[in-house]
């Protein structure tokens, strides 16, 4: 995945602006990871519970939740959620990286949280 991202960066051309390069890296890496997760979600079966040891139960649960989210959540929501919740970007940072407004970031995060809540209720 990292190789793919840096090949794309090389093809795109390096900018002298570190902020520009880092923003592009975060955006592209997130995009690629979500695409890859979606492909896996389409072709892979869920991890069988019977094979999961107690120590891995929580990890497996998170993974299955993530697989379900990737399958049902909007791509824009996932982009914002990954940048905000996993990478720890502030809302202004996420907005700048994705080229959208902070208001849109808040709206997408809200929709994502609602989706997670519905999934948790179902499970």
């Amino acid at each position, binding site marked *: 995945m990292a190789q793919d991202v840096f090949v794309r960066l090389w093809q795109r051309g390096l900018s002298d602006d*570190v*902020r520009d390069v*880092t923003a592009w890296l975060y955006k592209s890496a997130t995009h690629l990871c979500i695409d890859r997760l979606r492909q896996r979600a389409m072709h892979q079966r869920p991890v069988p519970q019977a094979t999961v040891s107690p120590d891995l139960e929580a990890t497996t649960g998170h993974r299955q939740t993530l697989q379900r989210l990737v399958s049902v959540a909007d791509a824009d929501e996932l982009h914002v959620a990954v940048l905000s919740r996993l990478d720890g*970007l*502030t809302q202004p*940072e996420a907005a700048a990286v994705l080229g959208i407004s902070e208001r849109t970031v808040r709206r997408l995060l809200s929709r994502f949280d609602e989706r997670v809540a519905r999934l948790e209720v179902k499970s």
Partner: protein
Amino acid sequence: MNEHPSFLALDRHALGASTPEVAAHVGACSVCRAHLDAVSVAAPIPPRVLGLRPSAPWWKQRWFQVLLPVAAALVMVVLISARPADELRAKGPPTAIAWVKRGDDVSQWKGAPLTVGDSVRFQVAPEGLSRVTVIDGTTRTVLYEALVKETTMTPAWTLDGTPGGDVVWVVLSNDVVTPAIIEACDGVAVWCRRFDLRAGSR
């Protein structure tokens, strides 16, 4: 700053594009300093990579230097070989066109002279043929060959101003061809298009 900066902010700090707030936080936060220490250490190179033989960059390789001079003339010929013409006509003749990238703009080559920095690649439609071969007409070397089933793009080459060969042949065929094929190409009945980049016409 009470909370930790984001990974983006820390990465920018590590690359010298920090802000006073992030710098102040890092100065007082051992967790963030540990993260910065970790990212500042280059990952070890896997042994299998160390064992690989280094190769010259593509722009320093002979084929590239020979291929693409400033104001080169390029002749692109699509050779129909080894298959009856009637069979080829069932789907129309093979075609080959050149695409030029200048800066961020990509456009089909219309005959304008190329300049240093321009990149060119060829789009071929085999239409019943199965192999594309790109030959340096000056050095008589094969630059690229591949099996093709449908419309395909070749790799791109960039004009770097190095003097050298100025003719490229794009050959479509069924059989493997050698550079010698271009010796006979002019004398046989082939479908071809000529692109003369030096004169800026075609």
